[in-house]
């Protein structure tokens, strides 16, 4: 790989400011000091945590394909007028009116969601109950907050039981389907 080379004016400017930054920025100084040494492959890699072993740490290149997200949005709109609700200006409406609309949204979206995915609580204990997290607990499923010190096991109270999608079945899409159309305009003849 060809290294990037700096033009002369940039090199002059760098030569001017670098002594001062090396003097005051210890972290930068350490990085510059390492530049002269070849990268050291002999450094032992830190042993991965047992719980993390199953997780595939892949760096996602760019944003994910948007179709499934748009599809879910279309389902929530179709069944429960979700987009209509979010896009509407709520100011000026009484809570009772908003409540009535919320019933439409709640009932329809629950139905729509149930058709495509199955949700379950991650922790089965009641919220507020005392829980203990053993060493090697899965940090993606459980997040600790508050007075986090020392090593697991941690003791605390369950603030939120969490949600996990157990299964997901989005409808298959036909060829030529435009996922950007969340709801077509309707014209009554």
């Amino acid at each position, binding site marked *: 790989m060809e290294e990037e080379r700096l033009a002369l004016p940039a090199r002059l400017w760098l030569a001017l400011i670098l002594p001062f930054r090396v003097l005051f920025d210890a972290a930068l100084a350490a990085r510059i000091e390492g530049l002269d040494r070849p990268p050291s492959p002999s450094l032992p890699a830190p042993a991965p945590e047992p719980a993390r072993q199953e997780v595939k740490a892949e760096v996602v290149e760019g944003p994910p394909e948007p179709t499934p997200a748009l599809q879910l949005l279309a389902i929530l709109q179709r069944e429960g007028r979700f987009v209509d609700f979010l*896009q509407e200006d*709520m100011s000026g409406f009484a809570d009772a009116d908003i409540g009535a*609309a919320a019933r*439409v949204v709640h009932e329809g979206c629950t139905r729509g969601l149930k058709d*495509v995915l199955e949700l379950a609580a991650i922790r089965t204990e009641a919220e507020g109950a005392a829980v203990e997290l053993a060493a090697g607990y899965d940090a993606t499923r459980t997040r600790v907050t508050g007075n986090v010190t020392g090593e697991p096991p941690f003791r605390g109270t369950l603030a939120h039981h969490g949600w996990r999608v157990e299964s997901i079945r989005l409808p298959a899409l*036909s060829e030529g389907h435009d996922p950007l159309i969340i709801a077509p305009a309707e014209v009554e003849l």
Partner: protein
Amino acid sequence: MTFTVGIDLGTTNCALSYAGDDQAAPVALPIPQVVAPGEVAERTLMPSFLYVPAEAQFPPGSLALSWYPNARDVVGVLARSQGASTPGRLVSSAKSWLSYAGVDRRGEILPWEAPEGVPRLSPLEATARYLGHLRAAWEHAHPDHPLAEQDVVLTVPASFDAVARELTQEAALLAGFDEPPRLLEEPQAAMYAWLSERGDGWRDEVEVGDVILVVDIGGGTTDFSLIAVREDEGVLQLERVAVGDHILLGGDNMDLALAHTVRMHLEAEGTTLDDWQLRGLTHGCRTAKEALLSEDAPASHPLAIASRGSRLVGGTLRTELRREQLEAVLLDGFFPEVEVSARPAAPRRMGLTTLGLPYPADAGITRHLAAFLGRSAPVGDERSFVHPTAVLFNGGVTRSPLVRERIVGILGQWLEAEGGAAPKVLTGIDAELAVSHGAAYYARARRDGGVRIRGGTAQAYYVGIERNELAVPGIPPRVDAVCVAPFGMEEGSEVVLPQAFGLVVGEPVSFRFFGSSSRRDDAVGSATPPGPLTELAPIETTLEGPPGQVVHVRVHARVTEVGTLELSAVEAGAERRWKLSFDVRGQE
């Protein structure tokens, strides 16, 4: 490996269940269907609706299924939802039309009252479309097990007469079934589902002498049957002893009745609803009904009716359905507390009626039940009606404990008045999938040997014969109905009418044809006035031969292995045999 497959071809929903070689309980097949333009998803129920879109109403290819790439119409979820806002292009209740003798069932009449220019199809073709979809869904999921090689059982209402049963078979052939599938009555299928659920333990829950009343209240129809528990050489046997009439009343009528009640309240307060809002209200009432009919139900259930435009918060109407409203409309309207001597109001004969499905004039299901039990009582019995000792509920509405309690409570009062004990309730079946599960279980019981419900044909059948008497101008000759096939004929059995007829060869001949589900004691050849019988489609045939010749024939009636009635004319003393077919072009 061969599967046994049960198909519930319902008035409002279809389902398909199957079971393998092991003794595991039947399971439902997820049925792929278009749920929105361009989206295909699987559901265990397929709404029995067919929508015929206008040209370019949906983007090209958006109704396509893997087995129907150039779809011109759509069945299932999308058909139902799209049809709700475009009723002129929606085919619904095809099954009720298929069993209605008042119209030409092979004629292109659906959607009923469709505007000009909408392509139409016949009740037969619509039924074939639903069956064809189910067959394709099966073969999509089981490409190595074509449906033709499985043991398939198709359910029909117990009240379906011989003509409707034959048309159902014909629809199956039209849908690409190689052979007509075996037919099973829906209430019997529900009973089989219960037997499947109980396993061998069912014998501990019923005893000899028990009479089980099956109450099947679906989306669009209500069906009753009585199944007696008997003993044969020390083994408990089940026998279906009576079936009710075809009543076009179900859960959908209840939702609509509730919606109209709420609408009238809103209108009294000065709020009018458009069609779109009324549909939303009907939907809301269904949810409210289920909530208010559950145990520990609240005093009222809120209803929110959204407007059609994108303004949701400003445009949503708020109201509620109160429990006393529900009880007045639903329990008192559909399940009124009546005496066992009560009978449904007779339909009013008006000079001008719009042709359409024969909806009952009386919505009181308990009155229909009283009539059914009353007429099923054996002649000479001191009891005024058949005393059921157990009840099995099936159908969506009966999931509600309040509805079940109401029916059992009324039955209990009737029984108590005649010294009987309150009936027990047989539980444990899935009210939505019991019929298809039961049909798959029955197919396996037939194949592998298991408990079977006996009963034979559910109706007695008659042909109309003109009396040979002096003709009086202006008065049609009187007609006797002569029994050709008695009640309870088993599959594979055949009877011969003792009377011989002279039939003219070479020109079409036609008989009037009648059925009765209440006359269980008429023997072959016995004559009765046709008054109390139900007139079915006429029988017609053309006997080939030299025109003008008269041959003497006897009428044979045979119940086929798959459960249809076959009538034929057999030349006396000769071998010639003509099949007599039903003329389903409809009556004037």
